[in-house]
């Protein structure tokens, strides 16, 4: 049988090794579907690397793709730290994008230094409020937040579609269900000329540092970690568990909402119902790869983004389905779960007989 012996404090080198091993394992496993699709393996990996890092344009595209992933990754990481299972970042992202568009397309007018903060705040607030519902249902009524956040993803996406076909439809949109464009004064500026990379990346990096300091250096952060370790013990120790869950829920939803702000106000310029190709769900993978560390989230998001951008580019060159990227990302999640065991436990394979002997 297998025995798990808990390890003591974990060295940083091991914490870094786990996700790296998982990422490498997922990339190796990706060879199976690639072979199935009839690709030449080394050529395919080469094309993927080139697609994500091969040129300045490729590299900035990868960073652009990483921007929402950092934020949804942080949303999942901070919630999972408290064992608040927010699987609803996808919906919160759309809520943030919808609020950004509602505020940024003419509702307010003024210079950038007023409009940009207004758009960012509106998006964060909308995402936070969406997550407040499931959090209150959990703390007040004991309704499982996994299912409610998952179901809200569908409800919010339908709501967005409804708004885009109704009151928020762009009359100049040639009949397409899309919002009016965000005002120039409300848009997040580009970071480089002729590239799509925008200030959303800076916002994401600042958010990651902010969450890091919150978790490490503040009382609220301590309370979040304590609730995640053992909610009953935390309550016993006088930590306000309900208030902590509500804070975490608001923060997690707000971070996901910011991802939506970045996508509409920094990248697309207007809202459509296909804004996110599952950034909310990929954020869970990012958070798990990062070991729920806010700084780690940045690196994990870069990895996942390079898979997406690299596989997209490889897919265009070879004609193989770009669902391969989603497949690699899903395998990375399963791999990091397993390799995480090696972080927390020494694993001994012991025969039943020897266990008996030991008992005698």
């Amino acid at each position: 049988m297998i025995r798990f012996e808990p390890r003591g404090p974990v060295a940083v080198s091991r914490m870094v090794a786990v996700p790296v091993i998982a990422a490498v394992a997922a990339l190796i496993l990706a060879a199976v579907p690639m072979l199935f699709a009839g690709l030449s393996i080394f050529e395919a990996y080469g094309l993927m690397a080139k697609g994500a890092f091969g040129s300045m344009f490729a590299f900035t595209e990868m960073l652009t793709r990483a921007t929402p992933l950092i934020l949804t990754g942080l949303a999942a990481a901070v919630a999972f730290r408290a064992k608040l299972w927010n699987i609803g970042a996808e919906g919160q992202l759309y809520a943030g994008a919808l609020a950004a568009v509602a505020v940024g397309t003419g509702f307010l007018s003024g210079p950038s230094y007023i409009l940009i903060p207004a758009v960012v705040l509106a998006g964060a607030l909308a995402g936070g409020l969406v997550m407040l519902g499931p959090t209150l249902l959990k703390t007040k009524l004991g309704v499982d937040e996994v299912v409610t956040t998952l179901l809200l993803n569908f409800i919010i996406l339908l709501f967005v579609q409804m708004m885009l076909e109704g009151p928020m439809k762009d009359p100049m949109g040639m009949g397409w269900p899309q919002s009016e464009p965000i005002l120039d004064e409300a848009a997040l500026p580009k970071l480089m000329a002729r590239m799509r990379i925008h200030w959303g990346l800076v916002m994401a990096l600042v958010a990651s540092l902010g969450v890091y300091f919150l978790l490490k250096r503040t009382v609220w952060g301590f309370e979040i970690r304590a609730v995640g370790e053992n909610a009953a013990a935390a309550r016993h120790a006088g930590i306000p568990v309900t208030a902590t869950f509500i804070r975490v829920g608001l923060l997690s939803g707000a971070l996901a909402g910011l991802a939506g702000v970045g996508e509409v106000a920094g990248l697309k310029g207007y809202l459509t119902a296909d804004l996110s190709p599952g950034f909310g769900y990929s954020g869970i993978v990012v958070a798990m790869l990062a070991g729920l560390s806010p700084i780690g989230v940045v690196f994990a998001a870069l990895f996942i983004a390079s898979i997406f951008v690299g596989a997209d580019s490889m897919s265009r060159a070879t004609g193989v389905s770009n669902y391969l990227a989603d497949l690699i990302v899903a395998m990375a999640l399963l791999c990091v779960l397993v390799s995480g065991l090696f972080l927390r436990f020494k694993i001994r394979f012991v025969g039943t007989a020897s266990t008996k002997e030991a008992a005698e």
Partner: protein
Amino acid sequence: MSDILDILISANFWAASLRIATPLIFGVIGALVCERAGVLNLGIEGIFTAGAMAGWMAVWLGTGLWGGVLVAALAGAFFGLIHAILTVPLGLSQHVSGVGVTLFATSLSYFIYRTALPDVSSPPRIDEFEPLNIPVLSDLPFIGPALFQQTSLTFLALLLVAVTAYVLYRTPLGLAIQAVGDNPSAVESQGLSVYGLRIGVVVVGSAIMALGGAFLTMSAFDAFFFGMVNGRGWICIALTVFASWRPGKALLGALLFGAFDAFQVRLQTEVGSFIPGQVFLMMPYLLSIAALIVVARKADYPRALLVPYFRGQR
């Protein structure tokens, strides 16, 4: 008002309710047995997709309809085994593992479908299950078309409810499954294997879930579409709580849900011009959340649900 009555007295409405309920019955029964054994299976959404794709593709490749059903069940069992290994002997987070299995099963299904059929403008169709014509019963006025003109898979779902209830409450195996979800160390002390029971139940439960997916491509529609599962798996997880982990109540919950969905679709054609279609499409999800809220206070979760068991540890 008379519109509503018209809907309720049409046999067509009741037949649609049962049809909409069928995949949910498979899903809830599958989720229910897993949770009864102490394992939350959030892989369900992906397992639905895998069952839908695998079953459809098998038939498309020529296995015949029941061959397709078997392939779908095996696909479900495969993903169930992954979830079982990660959560039972390895004791990993059931939430994260379940989401991982859903992402894996969904992306693998889409990838295989896209690779097998690289550029088709409209999804290829198969000869799906035809409604059965049961002598006498199907010909009864009203009741016949309302209840007895369904496909074999619907009757299989109903049979499965009865079998699950019987196994769970009337056999030693069922008692062991219930015990392993409530008090695993007591099961171990009886000389039974907690791991064996849990892994077995999750594999079988996942195979059952996959049949719900197979119903979608082999009975409800005759083709596979991306995004066709559309949250049905998550709805089943909510319905499982609503059914307080009882097969009979699960059937009732799925039927209520099917009736409500069939009703609102028909209502939509009456009042559709006043209310945006999305409001109606939101209803199933809102209803699931409402169902969870209604039972939240008295939900009696299996006591060892989500709790990993390690042999020889307290």
